[in-house]
């Protein structure tokens, strides 16, 4: 797997964007800012998914994350945001910030070292790069007529979801139900509790 030309450029743009936005998520003073940056990060990641020919996952990412979860986040931020935070009166970090950053840094370094053997193992072989050059992509199918190339990703993921992962898929629906009930139960106030009891 190797990206060429514009794809490589787009990758670097997206990667740098993702990282910067991610760092800003973590360092933003206001939760709203970090939520917005998180949206940007998620969109970037979704674009990376497209780059990886996983359009379906990218769509789910946008729909569920950006459309659902992040709206939830924004509502909660709206509910719990305090004036003190806006006026820069609160500490942003815990006392263990520097240890945490150090450990994270060490972790990153060690991951890089861990990548080194992988770099050799996963390097694209000559035949593969040649096949890619010819446009022989297993994730792409030629549509009859007009010489169009159509991604088979959604099709195959849907198939996999309903064939191999049918039971987990149903269980996931149950999980979502439980989460809804749990969230309602947790978030309702004492007034509402009295109302219902």
């Amino acid at each position, binding site marked *: 797997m190797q990206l060429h030309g514009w794809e490589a450029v787009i990758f670097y743009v997206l990667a740098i964007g993702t990282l910067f936005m991610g760092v800003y998520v973590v360092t933003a003073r206001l939760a709203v800012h970090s939520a917005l940056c998180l949206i940007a990060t998620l969109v970037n990641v979704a674009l990376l998914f497209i780059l990886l020919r996983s359009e379906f996952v990218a769509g789910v990412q946008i729909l569920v994350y950006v459309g659902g979860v992040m709206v939830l986040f924004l509502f909660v931020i709206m509910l719990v945001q305090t004036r003190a935070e806006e006026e820069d009166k609160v500490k942003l970090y815990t006392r263990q910030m520097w*240890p945490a950053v150090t*450990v*994270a840094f060490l*972790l990153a370094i*060690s991951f890089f*070292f*861990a990548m080194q*053997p992988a770099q050799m193992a996963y390097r694209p072989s000559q035949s593969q790069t040649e096949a890619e050059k010819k446009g022989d992509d297993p994730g792409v199918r030629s549509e009859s007529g007009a010489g169009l190339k159509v991604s088979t990703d959604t099709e195959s993921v849907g198939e996999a979801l309903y064939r191999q992962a049918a039971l987990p898929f149903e269980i996931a629906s149950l999980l979502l139900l439980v989460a809804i009930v749990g969230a309602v139960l947790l978030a309702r106030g004492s007034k509402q509790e009295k109302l219902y009891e």
Partner: protein
Amino acid sequence: MLKLVWLIPVLPLVGFLINFLLGKKLKLSEKAVSTVACGTILLSLLLTIGAFYEYATSYAPAHENKPYVTSNDPDTGERQGFPHSFTWLPGGQAHNSQGKDAGALSNFDIEWSYQIDQLSLVMMFIVTFVGFWIHVFATGYMHGDKGFYRFFAYLNLFMFMMLLLVMGSNFLIMFIGWEGVGLCSYLLIGYYFDRQEAGDASKKAFIVNRVGDFGFALAIMGVFAAFGTLQFTELAQLSEAYPQEAMWQFGLMSWLALGLFIGATGKSAQIPLYIWLPDAMAGPTPVSALIHAATMVTAGVFMVTRTNFIFQRSVTMMMIVALVGCLTAFVAATIGITQTDIKKVLAYSTVSQLGYMFLGCGVGAFVAGIFHVFTHAFFKALLFLGSGSVIHGLHHEQEMPRMGGLAKYMPTTYKTMMIGWLAICGIIPFAGFWSKDEILWKTFSTEVFGGGKVLWAIGFITAGMTAFYMTRLMWMTFKGEERFRKVHHDSHDDHHGPVEPHESPPSMTLPLIVLAIGSAVVGLIGMSPAITGGVNINWFEHWLDPVIAKVGEAGAHAEHHIEPIEYVLILLSLAVAIGGIYLGRLFYEKRTELADIWAAKLRPLYTLSFNKWYWDWLLDVKGVEAGKAANDALWKVDAVVVDGGVNGSAWLTRIGAAVSGWWDKWVIDLAVNATGWIARAGSVIFRAIQTGAWQNYALLFTFGLFIIVFLYERTVIYSTIKNLWGMIRGSGN
């Protein structure tokens, strides 16, 4: 009736539950409460008599005098089902850790079952018979009391526990009863919980008993560990494999016996744990009669007799038992001489008589000990109830110097108590004579260990003192000047006016009469062959003989040989009893000034006796002081050594923390911050780690992840660093 023995303890329990749970709620009348309480006990008594009859006439002859254990059907040998018995604690299998069979696998399933044999039948009879009449007495004595239902509920609970104690077929059931009677004793001593001394006395009784129970519990565990069973019948067989341990030889059996005996000294108020019993007189008088004279305090004697197969295998412990019993008898008698509270005198008398019982057990005459339990239950219950009647008649006056001349006001009480008095003094043919004489003779002629004659001499003197102080009690109470008229003008209950003593109602005098008859005649079932001219009609000894294990030489010839010296001893003990009575009458009837004269002459002895040999003071004051001193010493050790160590290590770690903090701050800021938790953990190690902030935990978590990755990739990292170093060196060149 043997099939119904399981009902005997259950009935009082039912009575307890009815009175305790419903007594207040339904506002049961005194009549209802007393009907329930006495009725259940009466049923138990009838069942006991029935069981007695069936066991004696049909079961024992057919089964070689073997005990009837409800967990083993006598005919099939299999266990009987509920409610006769059931597996109460299914402990499964385990290995014995001690004794001959250490390592052997045994079954620790504890059965809930009852053992009916000669010994438990005697005790059951005592408990239910005396208990029933005391219940009847209490209906009169407690008349009008606020807590009437509570009192009878506790009494019934006590009966249940006491019956469990004597009927249990294994140590654990006995232990339940043992602790249960202790609990009821506590509850009933503290029955008048609004009185300070009653509360104190109940706590004292409970705590002192704890000391004894500690030994008992240890002994039970020891038995468990050594034999792998707690069933008395099995233990009696298993212990046959152990030889008798000679004098000064302190093996397994001696240790077990020691633990059991510590338990017995607690429950039966022997030296050094007797101090609770006199204080226990703060409870209502029927309680004193039932628990602290007739039944519960004899549980120790019963237990020693029940486990005689252990005691008899340790000559040392036999001697200790005899010695402790003898000394207790003597000391308590000397204290009893000078006490003025009528119930206190009787309490010390009880302690003294219990000492006799242990003396009997110690010299190997377990039968005589139980026989004394039997007769003592009658006459001491009688004396206590009589004193209760007196106290009732005088509106709760207990001090003998404020009594006197009551004989004509309370004729029934007086007459019945006279019988009790004759019985305890040991006048032929009343009950006390037979049992006490038997014990003294067995002591004199004991073959278990040497020195029986010394013990006999002490017991002999004690018998004289017993006669003296009991005579003193009777005369100070019933004869002479009517001192109660003088004192009550200035005393607390002025609103009564001068107290006019009155005879008690029939519900109280009837038990007195019944017990008086008992005190007069029950001794006849254990008549010594010496009196009957060689004809052995000692039914009691014959009856209990199967219970007593035959161990060693002393056990081998347990036959009662009549020797001429026995007649001498009988005459001597009669003489000393009569002498004691004579002296008592001389002091307290004819020349009342003599008492004070002699008290003055023997001032040191008198003070010693009056202050109870300072034993209370020693245990209560000095003992507590010593305990405090020991605590102080321990505290000092704690403060100097332990705290020093702790502070020292804290100091060291603080230094360490300072050093590492300096390192932190000035040397490698970033890296050491990452390991800042080490410094904190070093200062107050465990507390610092547990901050409660989950982010700290997560940090550690991540650090651990880093460590894992690092270890996994260490060769790559080393080689990379090496290459880098080489590059830097190379570029430098």
